[in-house]
């Protein structure tokens, strides 16, 4: 275990002392119950889509893996392997054609209220201010307006956006919009955080900063995370477990446990750890085949982003 320099960014460091307190209480009181609620089990899930012309397409075939409570699990795989579909089924937005998705031991049959979902495109409502956007979750769940807004202010400060409460999303940079989205996702204190290539559209530096912030915030409240990405480095740097999926129809090819110590510190620096490189090499061997297969299938189109790693 090599010492890893710990450099959480300013906002996250500031947050460390100031995070809303209820977590400690919930964790102490019903630790087991809360923990069990955040276990995700995907058992033999198959998902088929029927196109408007009537042809069926299998997106996922017999996918099984699980995310332990409080675990950070990344899913990597070539473009079009059904990673996002897996996520929408955990969220309850779609239903499996066969198999079952269980969250906290119960089959998912709708949208659960202790989950947050972060999409690749920022899903902030453009006609609402940052403050109103962050307060959406509590407002939808019936929290009184003043209370929701106060809480939103708090979380905006935590993600380092103080002073931008009244701005509209189009007035923010891509990284700031991600911060706002992160605050909107975390304000409900979810026990499960689903992320679909959340930082995929960011430039490299902003992505690194956001990854660090995410890790710092996650390490404080420890929701289970299911994190979709096509960037293997990102997956290894962030996750406890990496699931490699095959080219479509997607199945689980292999599952790797990442034994890099936590807290991980800066993701830019962990990349140079010998153990990181070893794991990366190992997983890439497995992933490369799938990427190549997906690439061969799509022919000469240059859209296969999986081939970049």
């Amino acid at each position, binding site marked *: 275990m090599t010492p890893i320099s710990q450099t959480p960014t300013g906002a996250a460091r500031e947050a460390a002392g100031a995070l809303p307190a209820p977590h400690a209480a919930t964790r102490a009181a019903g630790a087991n119950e809360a923990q069990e609620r955040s276990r995700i089990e995907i058992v033999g899930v198959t998902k088929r889509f029927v196109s408007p012309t009537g042809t069926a397409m299998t997106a996922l075939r017999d996918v099984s893996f699980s995310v332990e409570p409080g675990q950070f699990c990344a899913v990597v795989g070539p473009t079009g392997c059904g990673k996002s579909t897996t996520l929408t089924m955990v969220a309850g937005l779609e239903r499996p054609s066969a198999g079952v998705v269980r969250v906290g031991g119960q089959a998912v049959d709708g949208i659960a209220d202790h989950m947050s*979902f972060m999409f690749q*495109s920022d899903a902030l409502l453009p006609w609402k201010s940052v403050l109103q956007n962050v307060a959406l979750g509590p407002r939808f769940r019936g929290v009184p307006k003043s209370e929701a807004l106060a809480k939103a202010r708090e979380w905006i400060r935590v993600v380092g956006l103080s002073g931008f409460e009244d701005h509209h999303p189009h007035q923010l940079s891509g990284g700031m919009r991600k911060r706002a989205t992160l605050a909107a996702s975390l304000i*409900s204190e979810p026990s499960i955080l689903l992320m679909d290539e959340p930082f995929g559209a960011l430039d490299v530096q902003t992505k690194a900063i956001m990854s660090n912030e995410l890790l710092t915030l996650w390490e404080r409240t420890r929701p289970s995370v299911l994190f979709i990405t096509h960037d293997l480095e990102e997956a290894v740097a962030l996750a406890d477990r990496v699931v490699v999926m095959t080219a479509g129809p997607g199945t689980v090819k292999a599952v790797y446990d990442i034994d890099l110590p936590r807290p991980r510190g800066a993701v830019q620096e962990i990349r140079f750890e010998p153990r990181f490189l070893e794991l990366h090499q190992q997983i890439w061997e497995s992933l490369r085949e799938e990427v190549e297969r997906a690439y061969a299938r799509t022919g000469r189109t240059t859209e296969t982003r999986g081939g970049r790693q």
Partner: protein
Amino acid sequence: MNHQISTVSDAKALAAIQEDLRQTPPGDEASIADAARARRRRRRIQVQAARVAAVIVIVGGWQLFTALKVVDPFFFGQPTGIAHQLVDWVQNGTPYGSLWLQIEVTMKEALGGFVYGTLAGIVLGVLLGQVPFLADVLGPFIKVLNAVPRIVLGSIFVVWLGFGPTSKILLASVLVFFVVFFNAFQGVREVDRNLLANVRVLGASRSQVIRDVVLPSAVVWIIASLHVAFGFAIIGAIVGEFLGSQEGLGLLISYSQNHFLPDGIFTAMLIIAVIALTAEGLISQLEKRLLSWRPGTHVETAGL
């Protein structure tokens, strides 16, 4: 750079740039901004001047040619004749009572039609956009109704509802309805799927989804349709008055036509244009208020 200057215009352009550079020392932002402002002001003055010139040429030409009898004022009217007609109507009233009454009646009909048609269009558009089953069932009927030249409905409305304002309001609202309906429907269907999925995961109920996502995002489409819709509301009111009424600007036009008074027709046209432009201005204000969250247009941000 010199070797690129091959033509006279290039040389001129370069001279202009050098002139600009002389006037604005490099790096001095204040003077660059001043120069840009001056350029903008100059352009604005040029545009205004060209507009005034266009009006003078058209109206003056019209007056001149009719005065010289190149064009017969009996058929084509005359700007001075229009001015006289307007003054006469204002001072002495029209054949159907005071001019203000005519304007008021037509305005009431147009506004009534505009409001009812818009409301119906939004409600049905959102409803059908939200309930695909209903949209599939009603789709063909709406298409058929839309294909009918709806102006002819005016006749049946006059038969049903008589010469009063109600038949005109109904005709105007039918015209307005279709414009707004199709836009609202399309707007609802174009709502960003990501936003919908996001608020659903955040725990929004169906009515919250409609209030916070569907309506605000359809507003862009609905507002765009209102500009056209008000025009249709006025058309509905005027045509309704043609078809049978006891007062209103449409009746004035119809009267002028029957008495061979082109100046009267033009005068009524002028009044209607003023009303339409005022409404257009108000709708633009509303648009600005409701869509203030949108990024500024290029016109606003460009400049320096």
